[in-house]
């Protein structure tokens, strides 16, 4: 397990380097001269040249790339054009909002999706199976913004059960410590505030969870169907084991590799900021942050945002890879 983990960590380095190179290239591919943008159209050629020199833009691209890399490694993500403040300080609160939302959404997706898939496979071709798979199909096909609006209309406007937008009530006063409000409210011992934050999470996380739930359910079903046919399941039955344990312990662990892959990919996608969900529910996450930056042409923010999202995606998949080794003992040897 240790050598597998070390190997996997070493493999991470070229991936991360490639990632920074691509983000760097994207920004360079955008037409337009930064100095011209900063100084305005009436700037003299000398002024532009001077600014280019002071910004390091007269250097060859590889020198610029290494300077960029050096800044990233020292935690400097640049300065926002819009607010003129360091991006590194701004990005975490937004990222935390997205992490909190994605985490709750993924818990819903994993619990509901895996159970629906298992029951479908276990009771194959039954009414339960058909119902679960039809619901999953609808879940995959339903546009998120439509579902989000429906939820708001039903549960906020008509029934008035749950808040429709934001991370918390306007008059509430949650002191950000980690910026993960569920944790912050608990750290401060404010249970009523915790409940308030949780209520804000319910509608957006359900909207965000629909597609992953449906995908996980379908993957679980097909993977479980395959495993339930295998010889070792028959062996377990021949031992006198209960079907419930055969399904949930024996079969699920074997069926889990493809399910974990899907969970990892979906988590990565959600953490990348679900712009639609965040916009509809006024959720101040990384998706909304980048969306605003795009509207203001705030290139440094866009660049750093993409970098952070790509980094999270790589890290989630790295964790998934490590988990493979824990689930299936044969993987270390491959």
């Amino acid at each position, binding site marked *: 397990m240790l050598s597998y983990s070390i190997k996997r960590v070493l493999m991470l380095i070229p991936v991360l380097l490639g990632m920074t190179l691509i983000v760097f290239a994207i920004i360079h591919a955008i037409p337009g001269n930064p100095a011209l943008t900063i100084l305005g159209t009436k700037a003299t050629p000398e002024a532009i040249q001077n600014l280019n020199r002071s910004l390091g833009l007269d250097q060859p691209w590889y020198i610029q790339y290494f300077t960029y890399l050096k800044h990233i490694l020292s935690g400097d993500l640049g300065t926002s054009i819009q607010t003129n403040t360091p991006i590194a300080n701004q990005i975490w609160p937004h990222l935390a909002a997205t992490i909190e939302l994605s985490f709750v959404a993924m818990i819903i997706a994993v619990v509901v999706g895996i159970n629906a898939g298992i029951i479908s496979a276990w009771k194959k071709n039954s009414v339960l199976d058909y119902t679960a798979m039809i619901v999953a199909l609808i879940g995959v096909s339903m546009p998120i913004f439509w579902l989000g609006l429906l939820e708001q209309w039903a549960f906020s406007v008509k029934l008035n059960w749950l808040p429709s937008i934001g991370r918390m009530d306007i008059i509430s006063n949650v002191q950000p410590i980690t910026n993960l409000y569920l944790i912050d409210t608990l750290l401060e011992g404010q249970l009523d505030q915790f409940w308030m934050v949780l209520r804000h999470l319910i509608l957006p996380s359900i909207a965000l969870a629909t597609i992953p739930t449906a995908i996980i359910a379908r993957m679980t079903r097909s993977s479980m169907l395959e495993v339930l046919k295998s010889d070792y399941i*028959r*062996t377990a039955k*021949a*031992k*006198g084991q*209960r079907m419930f344990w055969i399904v949930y312990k024996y079969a699920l*662990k074997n069926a889990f590799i493809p399910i974990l892959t899907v969970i990892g990919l979906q988590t990565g996608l959600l953490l990348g900021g679900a712009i639609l969900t965040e916009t509809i529910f006024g959720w101040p996450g990384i998706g909304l942050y980048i969306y605003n930056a795009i509207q203001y042409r705030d290139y440094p923010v866009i660049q750093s945002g993409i970098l952070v999202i790509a980094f999270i995606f790589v890290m989630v998949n790295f964790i998934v890879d490590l988990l493979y080794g824990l689930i299936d*003992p*044969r993987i270390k040897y491959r």
Partner: protein
Amino acid sequence: MNQSILEVKGLKTSFFTDDGEVPAVDGVDFSVGEGEILGIVGESGCGKSVTSLSIMGLLPSPPGKIVGGSISFKGEDISHAKESRMRKLRGNDIAMIFQEPMTSLNPVFTIGDQLMEAIRLHNRLPKKELAARAAELLKMVGLPRAKELLKEYPHELSGGMRQRVMIAMAMSCNPKVLIADEPTTALDVTIQAQILDLMLKLNRETHTAIILITHDLGVVAQVCKRVVVMYAGKVVEEGDVKDIFNHPKHPYTEGLIRSIPDLHSKKDKLYTIKGSVPRPGSIEKGCLFAPRCEYVMDKCRTDSPELVGDSHKSRCFLHQVQE
């Protein structure tokens, strides 16, 4: 013969497919005495495995279903027993080992997990005793370094070792009957002999009755005292191994014996029984073996012979005419 512990009477098992009912096992009778080793022989598709899965209550259902007859274990009919009752019997009173040792163990749990689970399902023991008992079982089936093996995964073991683990698992609760469905088919010849020796040894020591299902008459000759020959879902001959080898009554049995390759024979071509086992239910009238039989008579194509005889029974008109 000792008192019979498992008795199968008129067992009929069918598969209900889109093309209608397919009778895979069609009126099979046999019984196993305490501590006896019974061989069940036949070609692929003759209903041997379906018979054993019917006994275990492990038929894939749907489409498989027992439609007639009885299976009595110690006098109790278990052919339609509740699942909860079957769970208590399985692994505890009737255990089974399978043809594919490579895939019959769960790849993501250790040998110890799987072995201890088999014990724990039928005996409440503290964890320490479970581990001790598991190690003891591994030693019993002739596996060295039992303690370390408990922590290993199936993929770290060879096929022969895995089959030994399967046997250890099957023997974990001292079953009265062990059903071995082609236990040596997937193994090398040398390993085959070792596994058969092991089963003989366990039979002597624990007095567990064994039903050995195989297509290999050589295996039967080595291990069994009594043998049942099956063809197309029916028993066609039953009797003492020596009688059957020396004086086979049914042309199918005779064909099977003649098909065993002989090293001393100088013939270029090996003997085969022409044709293949008919699809269950495809022959509606007469003896099921008639289309492949060398001695076929007119009667065979119209009437179905019964299984007759005392200690050496056969289902063939040839012998019924003589008697």
